[in-house]
Protein backbone atom coordinates (compact mmCIF):
# COMPACT_ATOMS: atom_id res chain seq x y z
CA UNK A 1 0.00 0.00 0.00
CA UNK A 2 2.72 2.35 1.06
CA UNK A 3 4.90 1.37 -1.85
CA UNK A 4 2.02 2.07 -4.24
CA UNK A 5 1.58 5.46 -2.74
CA UNK A 6 5.31 6.04 -2.90
CA UNK A 7 5.36 4.95 -6.52
CA UNK A 8 2.57 7.35 -7.38
CA UNK A 9 4.39 10.16 -5.59
CA UNK A 10 7.61 9.37 -7.45
CA UNK A 11 5.68 9.35 -10.70
CA UNK A 12 4.27 12.79 -9.95
CA UNK A 13 7.69 14.14 -9.05
CA UNK A 14 9.13 12.55 -12.17
CA UNK A 15 6.50 14.14 -14.38
CA UNK A 16 7.07 17.45 -12.70
CA UNK A 17 10.82 17.27 -13.27
CA UNK A 18 10.26 16.34 -16.89
CA UNK A 19 7.87 19.21 -17.43
CA UNK A 20 10.40 21.52 -15.74
CA UNK A 21 13.06 20.35 -18.17
CA UNK A 22 10.93 21.02 -21.23
CA UNK A 23 9.73 24.36 -19.85
CA UNK A 24 13.31 25.41 -19.27
CA UNK A 25 14.32 24.40 -22.80
CA UNK A 26 11.38 26.25 -24.27
CA UNK A 27 12.19 29.32 -22.20
CA UNK A 28 15.81 29.35 -23.36
CA UNK A 29 14.70 28.91 -26.96
CA UNK A 30 12.19 31.74 -26.65
CA UNK A 31 14.76 34.02 -25.06
CA UNK A 32 17.34 33.22 -27.72
CA UNK A 33 14.94 33.89 -30.55
CA UNK A 34 13.81 37.13 -28.92
CA UNK A 35 17.40 38.33 -28.64
CA UNK A 36 18.11 37.24 -32.20
CA UNK A 37 15.18 39.01 -33.77
CA UNK A 38 15.29 42.19 -31.72
CA UNK A 39 19.00 43.06 -31.81
CA UNK A 40 18.55 45.72 -29.12
CA UNK A 41 20.36 45.41 -25.83
CA UNK A 42 19.07 48.32 -23.72
CA UNK A 43 18.03 47.23 -20.20
CA UNK A 44 14.43 48.39 -20.60
CA UNK A 45 13.88 46.52 -23.86
CA UNK A 46 15.62 43.42 -22.47
CA UNK A 47 13.19 43.53 -19.56
CA UNK A 48 10.25 43.75 -21.93
CA UNK A 49 11.61 40.75 -23.82
CA UNK A 50 11.98 38.75 -20.61
CA UNK A 51 8.38 39.53 -19.71
CA UNK A 52 7.09 38.52 -23.12
CA UNK A 53 9.01 35.23 -22.90
CA UNK A 54 7.51 34.49 -19.49
CA UNK A 55 4.07 35.40 -20.82
CA UNK A 56 4.47 33.05 -23.80
CA UNK A 57 5.63 30.27 -21.50
CA UNK A 58 2.59 30.81 -19.31
CA UNK A 59 0.28 30.62 -22.32
CA UNK A 60 1.99 27.39 -23.43
CA UNK A 61 1.46 25.92 -19.97
CA UNK A 62 -2.19 26.92 -20.06
CA UNK A 63 -2.59 25.21 -23.41
CA UNK A 64 -0.71 22.17 -22.04
CA UNK A 65 1.59 21.93 -25.04
CA UNK A 66 4.89 21.91 -23.18
CA UNK A 67 6.16 18.39 -23.80
CA UNK A 68 8.77 16.49 -25.79
CA UNK A 69 7.11 17.64 -29.03
CA UNK A 70 7.22 21.38 -28.51
CA UNK A 71 10.73 21.40 -27.03
CA UNK A 72 12.44 18.31 -28.44
CA UNK A 73 15.60 18.49 -26.37
CA UNK A 74 15.89 14.69 -26.26
CA UNK A 75 17.01 14.70 -29.91
CA UNK A 76 19.95 16.99 -29.16
CA UNK A 77 21.78 18.34 -32.19
CA UNK A 78 21.92 15.02 -34.02
CA UNK A 79 19.17 16.08 -36.47
CA UNK A 80 21.47 18.84 -37.72
CA UNK A 81 24.75 16.95 -37.69
CA UNK A 82 23.75 13.45 -38.79
CA UNK A 83 20.39 13.65 -40.49
CA UNK A 84 20.29 17.02 -42.30
CA UNK A 85 23.32 16.46 -44.59
CA UNK A 86 21.95 13.16 -45.81
CA UNK A 87 18.51 14.70 -46.30
CA UNK A 88 19.94 17.60 -48.30
CA UNK A 89 21.72 15.12 -50.57
CA UNK A 90 18.45 13.23 -51.09
CA UNK A 91 16.61 16.49 -51.81
CA UNK A 92 19.14 17.36 -54.52
CA UNK A 93 18.88 13.92 -56.11
CA UNK A 94 15.10 13.79 -56.21
CA UNK A 95 14.79 17.44 -57.29
CA UNK A 96 16.88 16.77 -60.36
CA UNK A 97 14.70 13.76 -61.18
CA UNK A 98 11.47 15.74 -60.89
CA UNK A 99 12.98 18.61 -62.88
CA UNK A 100 13.71 16.19 -65.70
CA UNK A 101 10.10 14.98 -65.61
CA UNK A 102 8.67 18.52 -65.62
CA UNK A 103 10.91 19.88 -68.36
CA UNK A 104 10.59 16.90 -70.71
CA UNK A 105 8.80 17.93 -73.91
CA UNK A 106 6.28 15.14 -73.41
CA UNK A 107 5.25 14.53 -69.81
CA UNK A 108 6.25 11.01 -68.85
CA UNK A 109 4.43 10.38 -65.62
CA UNK A 110 4.39 7.13 -63.68
CA UNK A 111 2.12 8.17 -60.88
CA UNK A 112 1.56 5.52 -58.28
CA UNK A 113 0.60 5.18 -54.66
CA UNK A 114 2.43 3.01 -52.19
CA UNK A 115 2.33 2.28 -48.50
CA UNK A 116 5.58 2.38 -46.60
CA UNK A 117 6.17 1.23 -43.05
CA UNK A 118 6.87 3.79 -40.35
CA UNK A 119 8.85 2.17 -37.59
CA UNK A 120 9.74 5.16 -35.37
CA UNK A 121 8.27 4.66 -31.92
CA UNK A 122 7.40 8.21 -30.97
CA UNK A 123 4.96 10.48 -32.74
CA UNK A 124 7.68 13.04 -33.26
CA UNK A 125 9.76 10.46 -35.12
CA UNK A 126 6.86 9.57 -37.37
CA UNK A 127 6.24 13.24 -38.11
CA UNK A 128 9.91 13.71 -39.00
CA UNK A 129 9.72 10.69 -41.30
CA UNK A 130 6.51 11.86 -43.03
CA UNK A 131 7.87 15.38 -43.43
CA UNK A 132 11.12 14.06 -44.88
CA UNK A 133 9.18 11.99 -47.39
CA UNK A 134 7.24 15.08 -48.43
CA UNK A 135 10.37 17.22 -48.45
CA UNK A 136 12.01 15.09 -51.13
CA UNK A 137 10.06 16.10 -54.24
CA UNK A 138 8.53 13.31 -56.23
CA UNK A 139 6.95 11.78 -53.16
CA UNK A 140 4.23 13.27 -50.97
CA UNK A 141 2.91 11.61 -47.85
CA UNK A 142 -0.84 11.72 -48.22
CA UNK A 143 -2.20 9.82 -45.25
CA UNK A 144 -0.92 8.25 -42.08
CA UNK A 145 -2.20 5.23 -40.21
CA UNK A 146 -0.69 3.84 -37.04
CA UNK A 147 2.54 2.57 -38.59
CA UNK A 148 1.92 2.96 -42.32
CA UNK A 149 2.39 6.07 -44.41
CA UNK A 150 0.45 6.42 -47.65
CA UNK A 151 2.73 7.96 -50.25
CA UNK A 152 1.86 9.44 -53.64
CA UNK A 153 4.86 9.23 -55.96
CA UNK A 154 5.43 10.84 -59.34
CA UNK A 155 7.81 8.18 -60.64
CA UNK A 156 8.79 4.62 -59.88
CA UNK A 157 12.30 5.66 -58.90
CA UNK A 158 10.99 7.87 -56.09
CA UNK A 159 8.63 5.16 -54.92
CA UNK A 160 11.39 2.56 -54.86
CA UNK A 161 13.60 4.85 -52.83
CA UNK A 162 10.92 5.15 -50.17
CA UNK A 163 10.13 1.46 -50.21
CA UNK A 164 13.77 0.60 -49.52
CA UNK A 165 13.25 1.92 -45.98
CA UNK A 166 16.53 3.78 -45.80
CA UNK A 167 14.89 6.93 -44.48
CA UNK A 168 12.91 4.91 -41.96
CA UNK A 169 16.08 3.37 -40.53
CA UNK A 170 17.78 6.74 -40.29
CA UNK A 171 14.89 8.32 -38.40
CA UNK A 172 14.81 5.31 -36.07
CA UNK A 173 18.51 5.77 -35.38
CA UNK A 174 17.85 9.47 -34.80
CA UNK A 175 15.32 8.92 -32.05
CA UNK A 176 17.05 5.91 -30.52
CA UNK A 177 19.24 6.74 -27.58
Amino acid at each position, binding site marked *: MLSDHQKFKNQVIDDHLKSMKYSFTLFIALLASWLL*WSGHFEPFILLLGLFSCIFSLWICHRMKIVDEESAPIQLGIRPFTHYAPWLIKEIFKSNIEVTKIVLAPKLKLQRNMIEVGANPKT*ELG*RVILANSITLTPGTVSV*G*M*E*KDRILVHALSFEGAEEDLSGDMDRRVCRLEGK
Partner: protein
Amino acid sequence: MDLLLAATETNDSLFNDYALVVTSVAILVTMILALIRAMLGPTVFDRVLALNMFGTKTVLLICVIGFLTNRTDFLDLALLYSLMNFIGMVALLRFSEYGSFREEGAEIGSSAKS
Protein backbone atom coordinates in the same frame (compact mmCIF):
# COMPACT_ATOMS: atom_id res chain seq x y z
CA MET B 1 36.95 35.23 -67.16
CA ASP B 2 38.86 38.48 -67.58
CA LEU B 3 35.66 40.41 -67.73
CA LEU B 4 34.48 38.64 -64.62
CA LEU B 5 37.66 39.49 -62.73
CA ALA B 6 37.54 43.11 -63.77
CA ALA B 7 33.91 43.44 -62.84
CA THR B 8 34.41 41.94 -59.40
CA GLU B 9 37.50 43.97 -58.62
CA THR B 10 36.16 47.31 -59.73
CA ASN B 11 32.63 47.22 -58.46
CA ASP B 12 31.92 44.13 -56.47
CA SER B 13 28.64 45.14 -54.91
CA LEU B 14 27.16 46.27 -58.20
CA PHE B 15 28.24 43.03 -59.80
CA ASN B 16 26.46 41.01 -57.16
CA ASP B 17 23.43 43.24 -57.42
CA TYR B 18 22.81 41.95 -60.92
CA ALA B 19 22.49 38.45 -59.49
CA LEU B 20 19.91 39.72 -57.01
CA VAL B 21 17.97 41.46 -59.77
CA VAL B 22 17.97 38.31 -61.89
CA THR B 23 16.81 36.27 -58.90
CA SER B 24 13.96 38.63 -58.10
CA VAL B 25 12.81 38.58 -61.72
CA ALA B 26 12.83 34.76 -61.61
CA ILE B 27 10.83 34.81 -58.38
CA LEU B 28 8.33 37.21 -59.95
CA VAL B 29 7.96 34.89 -62.95
CA THR B 30 7.28 32.00 -60.58
CA MET B 31 4.68 34.09 -58.76
CA ILE B 32 2.96 34.84 -62.07
CA LEU B 33 2.91 31.12 -62.89
CA ALA B 34 1.40 30.41 -59.47
CA LEU B 35 -1.24 33.07 -60.11
CA ILE B 36 -2.06 31.48 -63.45
CA ARG B 37 -2.65 28.18 -61.66
CA ALA B 38 -4.74 29.95 -59.03
CA MET B 39 -6.94 31.38 -61.78
CA LEU B 40 -7.18 28.16 -63.82
CA GLY B 41 -7.30 25.72 -60.91
CA PRO B 42 -10.35 23.52 -61.29
CA THR B 43 -10.55 22.61 -57.61
CA VAL B 44 -10.20 24.69 -54.48
CA PHE B 45 -7.09 22.69 -53.55
CA ASP B 46 -5.26 23.75 -56.69
CA ARG B 47 -5.94 27.34 -55.74
CA VAL B 48 -4.77 26.83 -52.16
CA LEU B 49 -1.60 25.13 -53.42
CA ALA B 50 -0.91 28.05 -55.75
CA LEU B 51 -1.61 30.49 -52.93
CA ASN B 52 0.81 28.64 -50.66
CA MET B 53 3.51 28.77 -53.31
CA PHE B 54 2.81 32.46 -53.87
CA GLY B 55 3.30 33.05 -50.14
CA THR B 56 6.62 31.19 -50.07
CA LYS B 57 7.84 33.21 -53.03
CA THR B 58 6.78 36.40 -51.26
CA VAL B 59 9.03 35.48 -48.35
CA LEU B 60 11.96 34.89 -50.71
CA LEU B 61 11.27 38.09 -52.64
CA ILE B 62 11.27 40.14 -49.43
CA CYS B 63 14.64 38.59 -48.48
CA VAL B 64 16.16 39.34 -51.89
CA ILE B 65 14.79 42.89 -52.01
CA GLY B 66 16.11 43.45 -48.50
CA PHE B 67 19.61 42.51 -49.65
CA LEU B 68 19.23 44.55 -52.83
CA THR B 69 18.43 47.73 -50.94
CA ASN B 70 20.82 46.91 -48.06
CA ARG B 71 18.01 46.95 -45.54
CA THR B 72 18.39 43.65 -43.75
CA ASP B 73 15.58 44.46 -41.30
CA PHE B 74 13.37 43.22 -44.13
CA LEU B 75 14.25 39.73 -42.90
CA ASP B 76 12.00 40.25 -39.88
CA LEU B 77 9.13 40.98 -42.23
CA ALA B 78 10.02 37.85 -44.22
CA LEU B 79 9.73 35.63 -41.15
CA LEU B 80 6.43 37.28 -40.24
CA TYR B 81 5.14 36.63 -43.75
CA SER B 82 6.11 32.98 -43.62
CA LEU B 83 4.30 32.58 -40.29
CA MET B 84 1.19 34.29 -41.63
CA ASN B 85 1.31 32.21 -44.78
CA PHE B 86 1.44 28.94 -42.86
CA ILE B 87 -1.28 29.81 -40.38
CA GLY B 88 -3.47 31.31 -43.09
CA MET B 89 -3.19 28.19 -45.20
CA VAL B 90 -4.05 25.83 -42.38
CA ALA B 91 -7.00 28.02 -41.44
CA LEU B 92 -8.21 28.10 -45.04
CA LEU B 93 -7.95 24.31 -45.34
CA ARG B 94 -9.80 23.80 -42.10
CA PHE B 95 -12.50 26.19 -43.23
CA SER B 96 -12.91 24.47 -46.58
CA GLU B 97 -13.00 21.08 -44.86
CA TYR B 98 -15.38 21.70 -42.00
CA GLY B 99 -17.15 24.90 -42.98
CA SER B 100 -16.14 26.53 -39.70
CA PHE B 101 -13.08 27.06 -37.51
CA ARG B 102 -14.29 24.76 -34.76
CA GLU B 103 -12.12 22.07 -33.25
CA GLU B 104 -12.80 18.71 -34.84
CA GLY B 105 -13.47 15.61 -32.77
CA ALA B 106 -12.31 12.48 -34.57
CA GLU B 107 -10.08 13.01 -37.56
CA ILE B 108 -9.71 10.58 -40.40
CA GLY B 109 -6.17 9.44 -41.05
CA SER B 110 -4.50 10.90 -38.00
CA SER B 111 -3.24 8.63 -35.29
CA ALA B 112 -4.88 9.04 -31.92
CA LYS B 113 -2.89 10.59 -29.13
CA SER B 114 -2.27 8.22 -26.26
